[in-house]
């Protein structure tokens, strides 16, 4: 979680560093929309800790935490975000379209549309007789998409080894869940498809870890899909540059930050010393700085390369 937070914090700085004085979303070393995952680390870490070689993830437009937790190479990912030839996708995908076939990691900028793809990956795993699983990630706003419901139905019908993860960060861009969703718990929606749905409150990484473990074990054992909703926190804006004037919960955001809270709990219980904490932070810092340096020093793609890779 520290590693992810350090990454997002540095991307945040780098993203904004060269967009002044007149803020231009397309300017700078990191151009384009940027959706950072600070505050949502527990969902990614608690889930991905159970994954092994061959397990797949489809992530949405806010993918960095799941990518890093799933073992996507930080340097290649950063180079992609910087739009360099050494990036995961040679600069063609960008931060919402990270693909790492070695780790079976992909994301899509169209919310909920990674869910059907995840079902297909799970179908392939099942057909091949492996005990691999697929994790499909989406936000609570995405759960009103047809793709969400079609996927739950397919997965239940075909008993696919997929775990649907809903990150409920309370806000679908600017719309709170109460204004968008007749059914307030996506764990309940799972019931409509006859699959178990669990909701973890309070962004609690240990609770996510345990529930995800049970869900993933179940999928591996051939007992079928399940849904895990994590009540998490969007620490920052929907995208960078979002003034969040609509947000009514800003004053409690800092106190709900899962990182200091978990660090305090671990320190209090004697599981983590200040020295260990510093060591973890230093390692994360070094890794992130190296990734950024790698990206900055990598070549910019030639314009004519835009014509490559339409077809295999």
């Amino acid at each position: 979680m520290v590693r992810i937070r350090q990454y997002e914090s540095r991307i945040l700085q780098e993203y904004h560093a060269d967009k002044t004085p007149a803020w231009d979303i397309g300017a700078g070393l990191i151009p384009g929309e940027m959706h950072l995952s600070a505050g949502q680390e527990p969902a990614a870490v608690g889930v991905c800790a159970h994954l092994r070689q061959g397990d797949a993830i489809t992530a949405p437009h806010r993918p960095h935490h799941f990518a890093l937790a799933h073992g996507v190479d930080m340097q290649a990912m950063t180079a992609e975000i910087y739009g360099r030839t050494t990036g995961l996708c040679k600069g063609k995908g960008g931060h919402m379209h990270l693909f790492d076939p070695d780790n079976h990691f992909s994301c899509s900028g169209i919310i909920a549309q990674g869910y059907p793809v995840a079902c297909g990956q799970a179908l392939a795993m099942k057909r091949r007789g492996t005990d691999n699983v697929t994790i499909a990630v989406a936000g609570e706003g995405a759960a009103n998409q047809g793709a969400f419901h079609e996927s739950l139905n397919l997965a239940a019908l075909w008993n696919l080894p997929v775990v649907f993860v809903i990150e409920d960060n309370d806000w679908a861009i600017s719309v709170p869940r109460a204004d968008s969703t007749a059914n307030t718990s996506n764990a309940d929606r799972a019931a409509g498809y006859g699959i178990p749905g669990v909701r973890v409150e309070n962004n609690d990484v240990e609770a996510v870890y345990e529930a995800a473990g049970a869900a993933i074990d179940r999928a591996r054992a051939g007992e079928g899909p399940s849904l895990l909703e994590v009540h998490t926190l969007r620490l920052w804006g929907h995208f960078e540059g979002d003034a969040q004037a609509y947000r009514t919960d800003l004053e409690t955001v800092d106190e709900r930050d899962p990182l200091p809270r978990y660090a305090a709990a671990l320190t209090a219980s004697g599981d983590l010393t200040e020295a260990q904490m510093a060591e973890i932070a230093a390692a994360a810092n070094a890794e992130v700085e190296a990734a950024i340096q790698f990206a900055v020093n990598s070549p910019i793609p030639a314009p004519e390369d835009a014509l490559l890779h339409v077809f295999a």
Partner: protein
Amino acid sequence: MTTTETPTRRITTAKAMAEAIGLEMQADPDVFVMGEDVGAYGGIFGSTTDLFAEFGPERVMDTPISETGFIGAGIGAAVEGLRPVVELMFVDFYGVCMDQISNHMAKIHYESGGAVKVPMVLMAATGGGYSDAAQHSQCLWGTFAHLPGMKVVVPSNPYDAKGLMASAIRDDNPVIYLFHKGAQGLVWMEKNQRSIAHVPEEAFTVPIGEAAVAREGTDVTIVTLSLSVQHSLDVAEQLEGEGISVEVVDLRSLVPLDRQTVLESVAKTGRLLVVDEDYKSFGVSGEIAAIVAETDPTMLKKPVSRLAVPDVPIPYARSLEYGILPTREKISAAVKDLVS
């Protein structure tokens, strides 16, 4: 045609498609079929006839009416290395699943910088002529061909249907395979005799991206595709008696497009008629005309003629529908107009 084959073996386009899929499934365990009513029913337009009996429900999977779900699942399976053949029952249903088709199936390879392949076939029934009206009669191949990242093949006869299907399944790219209902050779629909023809029993391929000169001629080139190829050949035979020599180019693939065959034919005849059952504006007919215009407009003795659906939804009443479809009569008139 080799002499070892029974010359009397004539099959429909639908059967040719199913046969190709079956042969690929026998050869490669990663090939499987998904779609609505592809199982025991055998596909509403016969494209999976008898496959269910041979391969069972594990490899010929009936899906819920859930196009986003199962097309997305096809993509996911393809990403993991399987070779799904997915049927979208009517191409008109693209509206409920276009995000999976365009934003995912067609873009993943490019977005990933070539790292991820999507070896998938998405087949769909196209075309009208039997009063199924505006939501079940469209061709829409121009729409798919317009969007980058997917190959688009459009067979017009049983032989090409089998060979293009084999190529599509073996291709490492997503291939949209659009078959015309009126060219399937279905017993329950008016059909052209060209929808039943000799097809070799063994597996073979027709390369994607190569047009065919379906009939040679010297006066006029008709560039066309799908069922309109059959109509154009009928017209060409008829006009031969009237002293007009028509060359018919069957595009067979829209993506990639065989520009060379088109240009060679037009260079020979100097007259170009494009016949397309899809909507006229911003589509295949305009694209073919543009290729000629961009290459050498002086090869044309007369301006390009286009016969396509005149930018209206497909109407229901037979009189209305045939009022806008590219019929033999209209093709014939257009050819005569060009040589006059």
